[in-house]
């Protein structure tokens, strides 16, 4: 068979998918490193180089009231007296406009521009750290959302200011235990307009009157929720804004002279009330500054900024309140709030130039730290910025040393420096790269199309051999080089992503073009097959049930509700498709044909190819397996975990590790259940192998099945027992227990590695027993039973020899009544020499099955103990899916006998879709969810209770834990090809229908007899599986791209995209491993035959 082309094609398809995913994710998920250093009062930021306590000088303001009105757009805050017919959201906050006009020395209103992503959490992070948070801030631990970067709240706490917080409970998650007092209210329910606001109003005024606070933060959510629910253009918005107007004016009335009031929105909203993206409607919020005492030098003038970037709030507030600017801030002080150089205000504080200098020094320090940690800021602009700063610094220091008043130019060039730093950072972190996203989408879409074409044309491709991997690779390299050259010419630097994109696109287009050509000649060559070959995109075929279910599955990824309820959705679809199988079979009259059919006896219908009794038996098997499948589906629902969005949901009790259970009775029960299912897992595997006679030989695989599988299970059971023991129960054995904690899992890992390696090295499970004296010579002796028995060439004799071996082997199996456990039980009783080969019929599937089973035990080790039940269900479901697939194809292949296997061993869509749905379903049924907090970090500490030194090992352990079901189903995917052959009806008529006297090869030996068909079918199966999974990735990529403004994008769609993409990565890698294992077995089988029949041509 053609091994290399199959593997090369699959590798290439996977590579193209990976490039598409990489490009899209690179454009969509902005990544930034967190700098975990904090500023302190001792920092040398003052003009002179002498150290001093920066916090001791009296600040401009000692107290601050920060009112955050979520989604307070600048349009809401403006007041236009000339507008006679205001819309519901216009002119509803007159207090802001009136204050600004009546008291210009005390107040200002600016547009307040947020940086994307404009979601509340990222924005709170942004205007407290002064940085530009992205979706993935590396360094942030996913398990909790607490801000670890230096921030205002932390700095306020450092200098002993009492921060009182009330409102949106997001703050409480971001700053746990940082507040002097906090009154959080639930923010999750978007439909609830009033809980948070009314909660704040109950406490706001009384707190303000009291004296036990220095900074008061109140975050109102009503406006934002009103936007999400009704949109801005709705009377409810008018009510909400009017309420806010009242709040602001009452707060102004209660302010004292030493207090600064800031009223601001965290982001705006679109006309539909959503936010998250980067359009101006979403980014432009409002900021209103007010103090009872004059702060501004005069009425608003030309020099004032048009727009205040959100990052600027942090340094401004820090310097006004007399605290150090947080370390990672890239903002710039808001100059109008500071007195010009030389005319210090009565209330003290620092001048504009001093503020700018402190600010610039802090920003420069951050830039130095960041660029030493990460490489994502372009070195060219970094060098320019550094040069700019050193120039400024020498100029400023010279001016201070000489005591002369620095020029006004210095002021503006400091400002220019700060602005350019911020712009550089923003270009690096805070912009979706639309071109990259589009390129990723295009490559993914083409990859899906290519995969589909490949799966439909696999027969022709393998037959014609027109798919040397050379041409696509060559084209890919050429287009990559062209892209690199173009970039060099245009920009002077090369970005690897674009070269990859060009390579992937080039090879995809080449393939599609050649596939088109390949398709037309086959169609024209034999006219009979033309419509079949050309018509693989007819609407009728697209509307078939499996593809419909798969389309529904992809469409479900576009709705947040369905993503949240994905576990149930997938189970529902899987169940529907499973029920469809027998219904469809019944529709074709192949499920339970009546024992005496009046139609058939009357000769009205063609006589069936298989006796009705056989079909009935298959039908009953199918129904029994369907029952098993449905049962395990239903039971698996009880192993689900809960997302926070699912209100009334109880996580499965099996998800918590045994050591956390309180009641010892329950603990024992759980333990017994887990160990029983573990034993069942091992027993079922062994039973299956034994049934097909694979346990007779003495090879490596058999050794793995006989010894390593049980040993591994024992290890697991002991490990669970040890880890469930409470620490204080066996004091004198504590050392031993500690040792067992480490040794048992590591022993299990070693056993697993040993078992997998043995399977890989010696995958054959065939036991040959010759009963006569000589084996190799006597094999040629038996009188051949084919027709032309005389004068035949040795070549032809050899050709018929191998079928004879199968025949004998099968007869032995038959005599053994499927037992196969006792070698030598069967055989022919006459004096003819005979050979018995046990397990030849399942030579391909046995190693795959065992590989899967061992891997499953290894993955189970990484899960909580209770998941053993779920894993057992997984095995049962896998088995019943395989049986359903086999039982539903057998009657069809027998009803339409094909002598030359024109249909090959093609696996239809239905089982492949079922298989991939099952993988998604068990992802949920093993307690996983597509969210970051639900990742089971404890998996990294199995066998390593004291932690790790590197990051690769724990990361791979967690990955293995998270995608356990993807891995098992991907490795087991080739079983779909083998199972119908394994379970083929004994005494089937496929051979006889062809008019041959001699028996054909049986079971999986058919694959060996038709190497081309085998390669084609394997390629087709793998590409179909890849297509289904890849299209799911494509759907979730589309969801993320289309819905990047959606309220739930960072909570639902982006995590889902990352899980789907990594799941695809893991599945494709393990699918390749599974396919390679099959090819490895094929190599072994070939060499085995060579040894058996030394001069066999094949």
């Amino acid at each position, binding site marked *: 068979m053609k091994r290399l082309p199959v593997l090369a094609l699959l590798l290439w398809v996977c590579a193209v998918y990976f490039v598409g995913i990489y490009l899209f994710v690179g454009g969509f998920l902005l990544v930034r490193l967190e700098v975990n250093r904090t500023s302190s009062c001792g920092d040398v930021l003052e003009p002179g180089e002498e150290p001093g306590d920066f916090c001791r000088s009296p600040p401009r303001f000692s107290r601050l009231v920060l009112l955050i009105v979520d989604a307070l757009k600048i349009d809401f805050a403006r007041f236009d007296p000339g507008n006679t017919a205001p819309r519901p959201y216009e002119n509803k906050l007159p207090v802001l406009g009136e204050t600004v006009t009546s008291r210009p020395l005390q107040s200002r209103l600016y547009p307040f521009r947020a940086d994307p992503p404009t979601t509340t959490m990222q924005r709170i992070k942004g205007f407290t750290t002064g940085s530009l948070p992205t979706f993935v801030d590396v360094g942030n631990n996913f398990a909790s959302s607490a801000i670890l970067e230096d921030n205002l709240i932390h700095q306020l706490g450092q200098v002993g200011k009492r921060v009182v917080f009330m409102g949106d409970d997001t703050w409480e998650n971001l700053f746990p235990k940082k507040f002097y007092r906090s009154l959080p209210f639930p923010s999750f329910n978007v439909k609830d307009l009033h809980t948070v606001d009314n909660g704040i109003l109950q406490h706001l005024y009384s707190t303000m009157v009291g004296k036990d606070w220095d900074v008061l933060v109140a975050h109102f959510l009503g406006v934002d929720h009103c936007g999400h629910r009704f949109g801005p253009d709705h009377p409810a918005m008018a009510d909400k804004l009017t309420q806010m107007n009242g709040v602001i004016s009452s707060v102004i009335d209660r302010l004292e002279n030493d207090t600064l009031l800031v009223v601001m929105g965290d982001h705006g909203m679109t006309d539909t009330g959503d936010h998250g993206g980067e359009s101006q409607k979403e980014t432009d919020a409002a900021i209103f500054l007010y103090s009872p005492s004059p702060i501004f030098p005069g009425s608003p003038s030309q020099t004032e900024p048009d727009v205040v970037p959100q990052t600027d709030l942090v340094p401004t507030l820090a310097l006004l309140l007399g605290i150090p600017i947080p370390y990672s801030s890239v903002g710039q002080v808001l100059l109008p709030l500071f007195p010009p150089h030389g005319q210090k205000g009565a209330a003290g504080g620092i001048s504009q130039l001093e503020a700018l200098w402190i600010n610039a020094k802090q920003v420069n320090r951050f830039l130095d730290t960041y660029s030493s940690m990460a490489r994502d800021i372009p070195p060219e602009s970094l060098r320019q910025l550094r040069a700019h700063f050193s120039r400024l610094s020498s100029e400023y220091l010279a001016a201070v040393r000489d005591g002369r008043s620095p020029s006004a130019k210095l002021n503006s060039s400091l400002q220019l420096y700060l602005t350019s730093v911020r712009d550089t950072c923003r270009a690096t972190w805070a912009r979706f790269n639309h071109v990259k996203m589009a390129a990723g989408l295009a490559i993914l879409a083409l990859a899906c199309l290519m995969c589909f074409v490949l799966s439909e044309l696999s027969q022709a491709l393998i037959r014609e051999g027109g798919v040397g991997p050379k041409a696509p690779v060559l084209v890919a390299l050429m287009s990559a080089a062209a892209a690199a050259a173009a970039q060099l010419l245009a920009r002077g630097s090369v970005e690897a992503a674009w070269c990859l994109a060009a390579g992937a696109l080039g090879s995809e287009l080449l393939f599609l073009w050649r596939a088109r050509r390949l398709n037309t000649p086959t169609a024209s060559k034999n006219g009979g097959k033309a419509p079949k070959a050309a018509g693989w995109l007819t609407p009728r075929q697209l509307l078939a049930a499996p593809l419909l279910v798969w389309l529904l599955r992809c469409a479900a990824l576009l709705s947040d509700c369905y993503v949240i309820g994905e576990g*149930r959705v997938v189970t*529902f679809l899987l169940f529907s498709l499973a029920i469809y199988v027998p219904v469809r079979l019944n529709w074709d009259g192949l499920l339970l044909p009546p024992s005496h059919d009046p139609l058939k006896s009357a000769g009205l219908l063609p006589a069936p190819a298989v006796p009705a009794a056989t079909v009935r038996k298959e039908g009953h098997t199918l129904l029994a397996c369907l029952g098993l499948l449905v049962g395990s589906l239903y039971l698996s*629902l009880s192993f689900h975990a809960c997302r926070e969005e699912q209100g009334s949901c109880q996580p499965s009790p099996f998800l918590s590790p045994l050591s956390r259970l309180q009641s010892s009775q329950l603990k024992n029960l759980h333990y017994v259940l887990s160990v029983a299912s573990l034993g069942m897992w091992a027993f079922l595997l062994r039973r299956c192998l034994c049934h097909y006679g694979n346990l007779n030989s003495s090879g490596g695989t058999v050794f793995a099945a006989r010894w390593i599988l049980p040993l591994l299970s024992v290890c697991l059971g002991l490990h669970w027992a040890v880890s469930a023991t409470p620490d204080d129960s066996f004091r004198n054995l504590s050392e031993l227990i500690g040792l067992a904690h480490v040794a048992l899992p590591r022993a299990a890992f070693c056993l697993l590695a040993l078992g997998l390696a043995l399977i890989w090295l010696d995958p054959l499970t065939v036991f040959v027993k010759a009963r006569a004296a000589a084996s190799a010579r006597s094999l040629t002796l038996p009188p051949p039973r084919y027709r032309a028995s005389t004068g035949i060439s040795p070549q032809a004799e050899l050709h018929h020899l191998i079928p004879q071996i199968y025949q004998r082997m099968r007869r032995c199996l038959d005599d053994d009544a499927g037992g196969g456990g006792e070698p030598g039980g069967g055989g022919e009783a006459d004096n003819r020499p005979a050979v018995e080969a046990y397990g030849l019929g399942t030579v391909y599937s046995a190693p795959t099955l065992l590989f899967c089973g061992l891997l499953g035990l290894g993955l189970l080790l990484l899960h909580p103990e209770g998941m053993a039940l779920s894993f057992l269900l997984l095995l049962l479901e896998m088995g019943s899916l395989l049986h359903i697939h086999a039982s539903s194809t057998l009657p069809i292949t027998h009803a339409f006998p094909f002598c030359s296997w024109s249909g090959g061993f093609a696996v239809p869509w239905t089982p492949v879709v079922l298989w991939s749905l099952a993988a998604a379903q068990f992802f949920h049924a093993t307690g996983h969810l597509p969210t970051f907090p639900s990742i089971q970090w404890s998996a990294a500490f199995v066998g390593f209770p004291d932690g790790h030194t590197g990051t690769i090992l724990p990361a791979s352990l967690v990955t293995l834990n998270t995608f356990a079901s993807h891995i098992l189903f991907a490795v087991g995917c080739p079983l779909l090809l083998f199972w119908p052959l394994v379970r083929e009806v004994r005494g089937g008529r496929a051979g006889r229908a062809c008019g041959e006297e001699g028996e054909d090869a049986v079971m999986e030996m058919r694959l060996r007899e038709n190497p081309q068909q085998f390669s084609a079918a394997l390629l087709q199966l793998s590409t179909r599986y890849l297509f289904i999974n890849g299209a799911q990735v494509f759907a979730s990529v589309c969801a993320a791209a289309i819905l990047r403004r959606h309220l739930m994008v960072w909570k639902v769609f982006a995590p889902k995209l990352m899980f789907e993409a990594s799941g695809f990565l893991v599945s494709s890698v393990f699918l390749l491993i599974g396919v390679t294992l099959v090819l490895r077995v094929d190599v072994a089988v070939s060499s085995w035959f060579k040894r058996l029949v030394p001069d066999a041509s094949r």
Partner: protein
Amino acid sequence: MWDHEIKAMASTHAIIASSVFMATVLPAVLVPGFSVYGAHLLWLYSVSGAVTVVSVAVFWLLGITPPTKKHTLGYKLSRVVRSCLYFFLSCLFFHTVVVLYGAPLIESALETFSLSVLLTSLTTLRCLCVLGPNVQAWIRVFSRHGAMSVWDTCLQITVACTLVGAWLGAFPIPLDWDRPWQVWPVSCSLGAMIGYLTGLVAAPAWIHYHRKQLTYKCK
């Protein structure tokens, strides 16, 4: 001869559809505060009852039901008893299937059972009327060559439409629109009902359109 049967079928379906209509309107007039969502179970049972009574009466009058072999009273009685038994078993069957599809097991068992009663009266009852209490025949009817008369084809279409309607009815349930018809089992039973009505219309139309291709072996 075909036209005659199609006409009979169309009028039968018209009668059944109008009974559904009456079963919706009458309680609205008689019971204060009735609405399809608000008093859903009442609507459900009234519709199921109406469909059951009218179907049985119409099919009995038309004489579609396969003729009994024996005419003894005891045999007829046993057929009626078996039909009732099958009706009940079918309710249980649908209940199980719906629970397996993901309906809550304990919380709203009454609602789930009511839905299965509705499904039974829309599908199984018709099988009982057309084919008699004979599960073998039911299985046979749902195959490509299984239909032996126009009524069998019509049965295939209505049952398929009803079940597909109920299946589609489950789709809006997880959405967060907070509409009254998203409450379990309103959307499913409405879906089943809409599917059934569609089937009532579609079956005669489809048969009329395809009457040239339809051939039945024997009857």
